[in-house]
């Protein structure tokens, strides 16, 4: 087997790598064709806008790994960003952030209760949550406005800092922290159960782990992440807007699809999703510099999402088929390796 062939095959089958490649291509097109050479400010602006999408999409990714769906992300983002811009002006901003995260957790928990205990279809429940939260946001803030605390803005965007932030933009730092948190989370008990529940619910239940508890925890964590995304969004746009969340219904799932997570449960990666979110946010800039804008940019976005979902589905199908064909062989090789390693 040639090494080039295996590398190509690996790239084609691994969603995160695929996403990273798409991101790289888009970014290079943007960087090369931009009228002025890219400055660190351009990069920071891009990352600041991509940050809320990345965080929210990671939340949805977790839910999808457990083989459920969550449409409510856009609603939580809207509500929490509106809350950041309008409510509790006298309170310390960090206390408000904690409060807002608690609101997100509560909404996620409620979604989980409806889905796990009442056994209602997740897609309908979270659609209802989405509509309710959008309505509540509209009641809180009829017209776009409000203001966001300066400390929070400079913390998220790094704008108040001097040249030191020029080398390493603050939002990139936050994304790095998220990547580390994800790598750690994946190895926790909950992280492992999360994948297991998505792959084989019955086996997990039989092994004595409560599938309900796992799903409920994941829905709650997802809610917290959406709320965090709302906080970041408020800092990015520096005000509140009760209609801004609508676009997140599509873009969270688009980021996940481009990030290479198949929508079949049991697989997926937050890192791929971050690449997906970055890709989605660099796309309008990339399309603009090569002269595509307006309606054709929309069509391009839609087509790219469908292609990304298709690629994920096809590679998942192929892997599934391969696994079925060669289950015996795989077991054998695993056993051989084990024997080799342990010297028996």
């Amino acid at each position, binding site marked *: 087997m040639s090494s080039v062939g295996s590398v190509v095959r690996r790239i084609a089958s691994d969603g995160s790598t695929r996403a990273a490649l798409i991101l790289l291509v888009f970014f290079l097109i943007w960087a090369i064709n931009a009228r002025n050479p890219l400055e660190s400010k351009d990069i920071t602006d891009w990352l600041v806008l991509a940050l809320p999408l990345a965080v929210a999409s990671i939340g949805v990714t977790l839910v999808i790994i457990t083989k459920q*769906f969550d*449409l409510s992300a856009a609603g939580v983002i809207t509500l929490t960003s509106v809350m950041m811009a309008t409510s509790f002006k006298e309170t310390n901003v960090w206390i408000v952030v904690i409060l807002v995260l608690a609101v997100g957790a509560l909404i996620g928990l409620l979604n989980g209760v*409806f889905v796990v*205990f*009442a*056994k*209602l*279809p997740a*897609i*309908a*429940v979270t*659609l*209802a*949550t*989405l*509509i*309710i*939260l*959008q*309505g*509540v*946001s*509209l*009641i*809180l803030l*009829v017209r776009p406005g409000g203001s966001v605390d300066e400390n929070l803005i400079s913390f998220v965007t790094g704008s108040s800092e001097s040249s030191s932030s020029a080398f390493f933009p603050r939002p990139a730092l936050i994304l790095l922290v998220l990547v580390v948190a994800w790598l750690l989370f994946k190895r926790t008990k909950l992280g492992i159960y999360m994948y297991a529940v998505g792959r084989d619910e*019955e086996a997990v*239940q*039989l092994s004595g782990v*409560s599938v309900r508890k796992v799903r409920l925890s994941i829905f709650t964590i997802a809610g917290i992440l959406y709320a965090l995304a709302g906080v970041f969004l408020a800092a990015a746009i520096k005000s509140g807007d*009760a209609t801004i969340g609508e676009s997140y*219904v*599509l873009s969270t*799932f*688009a980021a996940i*699809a481009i990030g290479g997570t198949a*929508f*079949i449960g049991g697989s997926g990666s937050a890192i791929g999703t971050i690449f997906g979110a970055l890709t989605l946010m660099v796309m309008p800039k990339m399309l603009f510099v090569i002269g595509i804008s*307006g*309606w*054709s*940019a*929309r*069509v391009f*976005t*839609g*087509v790219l*999402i*469908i292609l990304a*979902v*298709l690629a994920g*589905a*096809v590679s998942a*199908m192929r892997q599934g088929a391969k696994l079925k064909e060669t289950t015996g062989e795989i077991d054998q090789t695993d056993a051989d390796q084990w024997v080799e390693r342990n010297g028996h």
Partner: protein
Amino acid sequence: MGGKEWSLVMSIEIALFICLAVSAITVFTAASSEGGRNLLRSPGFIRPIILVNLAIGVLFLGRFYSDGLPSYLSVGTILTQSLFVAVIAFGQGLVMLIGGLDLSIPGVIAVSATIVAVATSVWEWPVLMAVVVALIASALFGLISGFIIAKFQIPAFIITLAMGTILAGISMGMTFGRKAPAGPDAVINLFSGIGKIYGIGIPIFIFLLVGVLGYIIQAKSVFGRQAYLFGSSPGTARIAGQPVLRIEILVYVVGALASGIAGIMLLGYSGNAQLSLGDEWLIPAITAVLVGGTVIGSGLGFWQSTFTATVLLTTIIVVIQATGYPEGYKSVLYGVVILLALIVTRPDRKWNLVKSNPRQQVLVKK
């Protein structure tokens, strides 16, 4: 003038009371015989009656907020708007019956309305040809979504969401960035409520026609029966030798076709083809399907319940508009109504709070 309005208000109230009385008599007559009692237990019979009477009740409650309710005008508005919700809910209901969710509806509505408006006003096509082309295009988009969803087993809402974006982009491109093109007079005359037969708006007749046609297609036709079988168990449908792939794709084609028809109707109702034409009708349609008792992906659901649920929902909208509460409350209400409908109509009637033995569960399943 004042006296005449007063008499109109009186007569609509009497008419609504007659509706209430007729349904009460129907229920009591049915309850008196064995066959009738069985009929009453069937959700496809009793639910529409409950929903219509709830709608009448809500309309009377509107009196607390507006002296003009109920009136012939308000009933006309309700039935006219119900037409659009019903046409969209028909397609959405079929898609939800087989376990999907169609979020491309606003996109299909925009494309179909734009095609008709641009073709007649800019390219000067005859109206009928524009309508036919718009419907063929809608069906084609449904075919593409349906094929991808069915062939690759991808969750419907993602593909339809992406398809909706593409279609919104295409509609934007077709209008060349100019302001929304106007619809042809014939379509406006049909669906805006200006055209009347015996003083009753044409959309109301079409609404009733949609009710009958929808029942025939969903409950009586081969396609409808196949969709039910596929929804309740795709595996069984396959074993029974049904062309499962074709059934699933066809459901999306019919769904998109319904949205395309709704697009042309809404073009007539609003007068011109704005991009946001379909936005406000998607959620009411989904809500109507769920309130009508369709359980997603279970093959459980009756068109007559969905159809009457559209009347209840538009009544609620009209009454809420009369109360003058801000737009946000409407959204909250929709969400709460969806949750309530899900809880009331769920097939498995208990909250599974007791931890069951997992080993037993698996045994039962197998």
